[in-house]
């Protein structure tokens, strides 16, 4: 039979030591910072190129129908939204909340997870609907100018994609995200209860 003091002495005899040095930490800090910056830069560069290409096409191609101009505006709007959303995401990575009390920090985590869920599901759905709407508007002019089979192929492909995406892929994705979020919230609520400073009976 051992008492708590004996357990304390076992604890102080442990030889397990951290394998990480302060140099490792600083090296990781530099790598992470560069990693994040390059990822952001790459994504931004890709989107800026896509935006520039869209503007070029819009100016150079003699589009005649208002639907095509609207499609171009929708595509550009989507690009700008994507860039802004990415920047906002990176700016959200702040560490101030880490100094909160665990109970408050858990609340922050719950909110953060919920916001990410909204971003990954509802906002992504709206974004995809706009891209699809852009393609549909674009095909109106194609239908007048291109050969019949090209128009039909384009329309079939677009609608097939909408059906597969909206009725198959998106529900699977949302269901998966929802179950992940439910698990997280459930665990966070359990933790919140543990840290609640309630009086003991």
């Amino acid at each position, binding site marked *: *039979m*051992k*008492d*708590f003091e004996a*357990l*304390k002495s*076992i*604890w*102080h*005899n*442990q*030889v*397990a*030591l*951290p*394998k*990480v*040095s*302060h140099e*490792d*930490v*600083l090296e*990781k*800090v530099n790598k*992470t910072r560069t990693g994040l910056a390059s990822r952001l830069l790459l994504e931004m560069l890709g989107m800026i190129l896509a935006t520039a290409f869209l503007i070029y096409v819009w100016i150079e191609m003699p589009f005649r129908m208002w639907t095509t101009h609207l499609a171009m505006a929708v595509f550009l709007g989507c690009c700008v939204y994507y860039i802004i959303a990415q920047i906002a995401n990176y700016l959200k990575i702040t*560490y101030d*909340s*880490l*100094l*909160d*009390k*665990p*109970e*408050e*920090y*858990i609340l922050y*985590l719950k909110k953060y*997870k919920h916001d990410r869920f909204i971003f990954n599901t509802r906002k992504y759905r709206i974004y995809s609907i706009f891209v699809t709407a852009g393609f549909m508007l674009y095909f109106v002019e194609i239908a007048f100018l291109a050969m019949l089979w090209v128009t039909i192929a384009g329309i079939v492909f677009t609608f097939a994609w909408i059906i597969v995406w909206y009725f198959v892929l998106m529900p699977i994705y949302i269901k998966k995200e929802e179950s992940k979020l439910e*698990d*997280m919230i459930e*665990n*966070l609520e359990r*933790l919140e209860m*543990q*840290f609640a*400073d*309630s*009086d*003991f009976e």
Partner: protein
Amino acid sequence: MKITGLSKEALFKEIFQANSKKIYHLCYGYTGDDDTANDLMQETFMKVWQNLDKFRNQALISTWIYRIAVNTCLSYLRVEKRQPKDELTDNIIETKGEEISDKNEQVASLYKCIAQLEENERIIITMVLDEVPYTEIATISGISEGNLRVKIHRIKQKLTELYNKNERF
């Protein structure tokens, strides 16, 4: 600890050397896994480095580091789909059980018992075992000192019972 008048890197080194072992124990007690504990400790000190300027001239830097470590552990468990407690326990037996000495066996057994406690109990008891003052533990965990004392008393009893039960088998 004097934290003024040093370069940021020298200050960080000093802070790291003074606190890393205890933070590692906290992470190990919480996760029951050596590699994960190292990752979480590294993550904690990365955040310490990134926020060091905000904390210059504060009296108890260890309280601040512990708070970051606790919150890092909590968020780790939320992001990753964790293993259930039984698997955690097996993991400790596997990684620590192979080691030869009796002392290590006792430490492994102690970690195994800690893994059976609730998350906040694991956090509190590792700080108690590392002799962090009760006032500091209360500040870190956001629990009033009166409630904390009652809580610590219960956790100590629970851990001792678990350990003795474990030792009998």
